[in-house]
């Protein structure tokens, strides 16, 4: 399964935008574990995920070619 990963703000300095190919990761909770393993610094940071331009409020299923955004706390205005 191909998942597009994009990141913003402080977290964009931790990882590049990338498309990853992963198996055995079926939902956003599992993807989060995968990412925190790959980027241990992420565990220390506050962030939210968005799945295909919708903020993830609870664990959601992933399908091929989904886009996940990793977003630190907002600081606009």
């Amino acid at each position, binding site marked *: 399964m191909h998942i597009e990963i994009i990141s913003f*703000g402080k977290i964009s300095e931790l990882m590049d935008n990338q498309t990853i190919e992963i198996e055995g990761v079926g939902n956003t909770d599992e993807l989060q574990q995968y990412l925190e393993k790959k980027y241990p610094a992420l565990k220390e940071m506050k962030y939210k995920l*968005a799945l295909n331009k919708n903020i993830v409020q609870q664990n959601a299923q992933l399908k091929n070619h989904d886009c996940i955004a990793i977003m630190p706390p907002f600081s606009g205005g």
Partner: protein
Amino acid sequence: MSEKKIKNIFVAGPITPDFIAKSIANHGSKTGIGGHSIFMGQVRMDEIDGKLVSAIDYTAYEALALNKMHEIREEIFSKYPLSCMHIHHSLGEITAGEICLFVFTSSKHRKPAIDACNELVERIKAELPIWGKEIFADSSHQWKENI
């Protein structure tokens, strides 16, 4: 969510006083309006650990921000009897002293315009995926955090 067109709120670079003046002037033909409320955010030259902020570089997850803003806009329009609502946020590097956020509401009587403007500012800061990178004079930076 309604079928209304999603409006862009993002502006490359600072929001200029001239832009604001034109926006105000556009309302001269709307003779049902009695009160306008405006909020403007300006980049502060804060001192942090002895270094001065010379600019803030704004980025956003634009697609998500515009969807969210559309939702907020609809909610505010159904909550308050407004004639107009205009929102603009800068992207890119905005120098200290320049304006990066412009929120402009209008209504027949003053109260709805004032209340809607305040609520919009709070929601924009809390809910839109926008990030400010504070650039110091020595080119180092830190990521802004909204209090």
